């Protein structure tokens, strides 16, 4: 089990705002790593840097020791990093099945038969609980279904690592339970490494092997979930500094 994704001294500024400031991190193969921090901590920016939406100002990103610097989003996807978006971005005017097919085609091009692709897309829709929605347009499904569709589309690119950006937000308790089971299943059965941003602490604590905490663009803490929640710096980042 080696290091899958690694970042060294990653920084990114937008004008005068430093969104990510000298962050070092790594994700081991087969791990589930939680990425937490208050709003504006730079978590989604870090995702965007890893997936090549924009390049870092400085620092090195590697995936399986291959440099990600200068690669475009689609090239990074083809290396094996898939993602979902915090504000969901399904292809609204396409059917759910077509949404998933785009992921399959994106990763491998036209190598396998149409029938084979359709079958794989249907299988992914089944494990994400979308089997009845094949012919529905993505604009006509609920937000929760859209989130699942994004997971299905990301899985369709046959990734080694998947970055999930707040898949739990807006879910009720039983839906959250299902989502956690899905995440566990993605790791145990599909053998995919997971890095996920989440605000729902219970879910992060229960499902992550390790947690990275960010605040104001910096990594302030990293460790086992139990250790992180009781850390003074983490509590301060979320609740503000104590006067004592």
């Amino acid at each position, binding site marked *: 089990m080696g290091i899958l994704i690694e970042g060294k001294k990653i920084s990114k500024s937008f004008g005068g705002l430093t969104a990510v400031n000298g962050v070092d991190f790594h994700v081991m193969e087969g791990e589930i790593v939680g990425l937490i921090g208050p709003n504006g901590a730079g978590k989604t920016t870090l995702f965007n840097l890893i997936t090549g939406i924009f390049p870092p100002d400085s620092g090195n990103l590697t995936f399986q020791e291959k440099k990600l610097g200068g690669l*475009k989003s689609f090239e990074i996807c083809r290396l094996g990093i898939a993602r979902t978006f915090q504000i969901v971005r399904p292809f609204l*005017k396409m059917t759910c099945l077509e949404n998933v097919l785009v992921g399959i085609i994106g990763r491998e091009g036209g190598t396998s038969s149409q029938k084979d692709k359709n079958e794989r897309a249907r299988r992914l829709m089944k494990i994400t609980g979308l089997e009845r929605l094949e012919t529905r347009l993505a604009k006509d499904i609920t937000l929760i279904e859209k989130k699942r569709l994004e997971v299905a589309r990301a899985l369709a690119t046959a990734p080694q690592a998947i970055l999930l950006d707040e898949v739990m937000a807006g879910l009720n308790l039983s839906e959250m339970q299902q989502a956690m089971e899905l995440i566990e299943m993605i790791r145990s059965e599909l053998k995919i490494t997971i890095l996920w941003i989440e605000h729902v602490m219970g879910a992060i604590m229960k499902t992550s092997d390790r947690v990275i905490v960010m605040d104001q663009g910096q990594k302030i803490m990293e460790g086992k979930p139990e250790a992180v929640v009781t850390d003074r710096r983490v509590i301060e980042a979320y609740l503000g500094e104590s006067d004592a």
Partner: protein
Amino acid sequence: MKPATVGFSAAGLALAALLPFLLSQYWLHVMIISLFYVMMASSWNLLAGYTGQVSFAHAAFAGVGAYTSGMISVQLGISPWLGIPLGVAAAGLLGLGLGFLCIRMGGIYLSLTTLGFSEIIRIVITNEDKWTRGTMGLQTPGLFTEYSKTFYYFLFLAVAIAMAAIIYKLIHSEWGLTMRAVLNDEVAASASGINTIRVRLLAFTATSAMAGLAGGLYGHYLMLVTPDIPSLGQMFLVLAMAVIGGMGSFAGPIVGAFVLEILSEYIRSWGEYHVLVFGLIALAMARFAPEGLMGFWTKKRENRGHID
């Protein structure tokens, strides 16, 4: 394909084959022009309706095709049958270049850039009168030794059907799927492994080449190539055909081309105002019935429960 579709197509083809023997020379001319617009509107729709690149340079590429072939045949005495493919290549290459320029642009910026390009082409053609004979127009040789509208009609029909078939194949292939993904959300498409730049460039190049082919044929049919071909008036007519017929659908621009071309023959006395009228109708359709005439048709079918 469903049996009904096959039946319709066969009947349509039979009717199309009989038209030259049923119509007057005047209406045969209208049919030929309509087929030119079928090629123009269908290929523009592939670019604008399927990849979201609303280009205003489509008529300019038809002009490039028409003038390339026209000048080669007039100045060098080369057969138009060779000139037209060269015009297609010239339009395709220029399309690739313009598409490349527009890679980082979307929406209104892309439209404005292509509008500027279109005007540059028209102005160059108008002013380089040593080569193009400017507004006087370039007299070009015909494609057949013996002039016959029937011959031209069948040639235009064959090319239009072939082009429509290629477009149909494309939009129902994986390429079509990736094009629609790019249209829906470029960032998400790229994050799903789609090379969005390649998709956009391919669409730009292919559709520009198609416009070049349409323009080349048109020029050798009229036997007089003028800067009207690469004009914005022409462009807006093509746009109106696609929008009124139904952008983003396969049949929409074909229907739109026939409806508007035939209609414009009836309101010919209005002169240039007919483009204005079509523009206003297109605006109203874009606002109130964005799926165009084809939208009415599919809605009606859905209401009757015929949708599959």
